[in-house]
């Protein structure tokens, strides 16, 4: 647990959740595991932000939830992307890429 990890800004967390759900519907635990896994433990999702974020996204209508059965046969709440969630993800990805490219350029020139 000594590896350096980064706290995520709220907007960034929202985007990562959307991206994760774009692959397949998933429960809260799975989302946090997946983000940690893909970022190779660089990004750690704080549960204290994850669940409020999920609720916020659901209230905005970007994701929806449904009770299902997990891998180990327990009832779990599965979140999936809605149509407007998909649109939002595309927009945010684009913005993110434009911004990171810009930031990168600035960092390289100095």
């Amino acid at each position, binding site marked *: 647990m000594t590896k350096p990890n980064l706290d995520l800004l709220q907007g960034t967390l929202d985007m990562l959740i959307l991206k994760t759900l774009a692959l397949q519907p998933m*429960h*809260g635990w799975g989302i946090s*595991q997946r983000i940690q896994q893909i970022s190779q433990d660089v990004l750690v999702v704080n549960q*204290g932000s994850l669940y*409020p974020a999920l609720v916020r996204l659901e*209230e905005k209508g970007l994701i929806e939830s449904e009770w299902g059965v*997990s891998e180990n046969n*327990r009832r779990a709440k599965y979140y999936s992307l809605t149509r407007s969630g998909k649109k939002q993800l595309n927009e945010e990805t684009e913005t993110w890429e434009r911004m990171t490219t810009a930031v990168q350029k600035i960092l390289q020139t100095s």
Partner: protein
Amino acid sequence: MFRMIRRAVRAILRQRKIESDLDEELQFHLDMQAKEYERRGMSAQEARSATLRTFGGVHQIKEQVRDLRGVGLIEVFRQDLRFGLRTLRKSPGFTLVAILALGLGIGANTAIFSVINGVMLRPLPYERGDRIVQIRQQRPLANQNNVPFSVQEVEDYRTQNHTLSGVVEYHAMWFILLGREEPERVQTGVVSHNFFHVLGIKPLLGRTFRPEDEQHEADAVLVLSYGYWQRAFGGNPNVVGQAFQMNDRPHTVIGVLPQIPQYPDENDVYMPTSACPFRSEDKFIANRTARMMQVFGRISDGETVQSVQQDLDTIAGRLQQDHPEVYPATTGYTAAVIPLEAALTSSIKPMLSMLIFTAGFVLLIVCASIANLTIARLLRREREITIRAAMGASRVRIVRQLITESITLSVIGGVAGLIFAAASMNMLTRFAARYTARAVEISMDARVLVFTFVVSLLTGALFGLLPALQSRRNLARSLRDAGGRTVSRSRHRVRSVLIVAQIAVSFVLLIGAGLMMRSLFKLEAINPGFNLHNVLTMRIALNFSKYNTSEKRLDFAQRILSDFEQLPGVTSAGANGTFPLNEEAPGSLRLVVEGRPMPEGGFSQAPLVDLHFVSPRYFETLGMQVLNGRGFSNTDGIDATSVVVVNESLARRYFPDDDATGQRLTLDRGATWASVVGVVADVKQQLQADVPDTIYVPLFQRPILLTMQVLLRTTGDPKLIAPAVREALYKNDPEQPVDNFRTLDEVRAEVLAPPRLTAALLVVFACLALVITAAGIAGVIGFSVSERSHEIGIRMALGARRGAVLWMILRQGTLLIGAGLAAGIVGGLGFSQVMQGLLFQVQPNDLLTFLAVSLVLAIIGAAACILPARRATTVDPTMALRSEP
């Protein structure tokens, strides 16, 4: 905003589900995490605690989620409500006073609104009541705007119109109904067979009329009104099918009407036109000028009141062309359409608008006064609020808490108001019944409840928002001035403005009450010109098929009057077609005096005077003085010389120089002449009107009355002899009904009831306002005394006299009262103009009323100042100085 509401609503409905879902979801997460740790080699125990450590506060997460789900809002509201109720419980005095004041204020508004709702806002309980109209024939040049219709005219409008889907006629009659225990005079509506169909009234029991019921010579049938069915038959449904004897033939009851306002009159029974012995006469039907009917219609789909009016104009024009002799151009002739709703409520509208204004004013005063009390309480709660703010409560949160408290209070007050309103409903319904047939519809329905709820919320918001927005502008400053000596300058201003407004509005209400009282006193003081006490009146409506000649009617009248006079306790008996203060209008006559020139334009231009047919002892029974000549005697019979008696007004106007007695005038357009044998004192026919010029004719000389009002002067309580009277009458004719037993005192009380009740309502409202305002003044002054006790202490320590301190405090109160009076006078002058129509012999800007009201308010205001001001003079300088932090 919309989403917030939706979320809040959903949160309320699904709060439990949201909570349990969240618990389960978080538990799942924790378990999975623990499993993951176990997989990495931790023991179950270690895994669990590690999980909880990394996870962070479960409760914080839940709280955050609750907020997001909207549950938070509800939770905050609950907290506020609980806290508010606790605070209110802690100051029971304030709470009780506030709830009582709010209850009275909201209750008054609820009660008046129920009446407005019942008689004006609700659609007529007839099917599509807004499409029903009355048609009136008018002669504008002769100032007649409601001329009855003849059968011919009804027929013309029925067949020639293109805009009405039904045209029906109505006229009121009374007949004698036999077959119940006692003979009974029943008020009867005579109507077209489709009358109820066109008005859209479905029977409660049985059926209404069909075309065959209106055929010539059809079997006579009756439909009972709901009220009569209840009154006479105790609501027995078996009455349908029973037959009763009326007009010498059996009439079968075929149906009962539902409980609806009847228009134009409250009738006992209805019959088709063919059953009315007058309406069905051939001569009557053929005569275009035999007018007695009213006409109603239903507007066809797609037509409007305007298009109906155009249609009627066309028909009226055609009639005028076809029958110029019947519709002379000199009087003009038109037909007008008037929506029934408007016709039903036109007389109660001014009364109701004045009452709702008044009730609204009272509520405003209540609001201002509770706002003032709340500000005072807030100042005392300064520390609490300051601490809460210091602990991080946002301004919005504090204001929300204060408003929740106010609205809680006002909603409880609203419930109290509903109770007050419900308690007064009976009285108000009877009051409204004097003005409109729709009074039966008054009830506290869903709309009234919604109104009360909304008014309660608005009231709470109004008296809560003002103090709440005043609170906490500057936290640091208020912490600094923890003593609360200097912060409240702006609040003082607000409180002063509120008090001035209260005084002004109270002034206006007092003016209303004062003018109404003055008007009522004038009415009460009217001397009707006769002795009201110990006189029993009754109505004897003769069976016209039995008493169908003058001789029979004379014989009957003579017999019963002499029998009545034989009764123990009766000193004299008199009869007339009407009597003073009675609602029955007397007949009228064109006055033409023998030997004087005819007026220009002939007989029909001669002045109209009232005409009474009275029995010999009528004047004596009423206690009317004979000023000159003689009254009537039994010798003024059918074959004797024609005689009349005139009243003082007539004698003074037409015979100012000569003796009226000995003059002759005509009762039959100049064919014969009757001598004036006496002059009697003036008596009021209507309490509020001038005494009309009147001619009295001996009833025993011209026994033409079908309905006699009989008056008995008694030695004891007049009411007690009614049974004996009834018995004496039935001995003469067991089939002759008598009803409407009232004493003259009761008749007068009935005339005075509406102004008395209006005055009483206004006085109650005004007193309420006065008490609340006085309490408000005392509160403001008292508070400023306790706030300034430090200053007062210094002044007194420096040698100020008690009188000077007293004056200093009183001056503050005097300024408030003076400002309030000034504003009140302006408002009062405006308000009194609205009342003008309700006043009798009192000018709306009546100086006496304005002076008296100013004086009352000034005295009450001063008294309210003096109590707290005296407390100021008892301030002990050492205590006041020491107590300062």
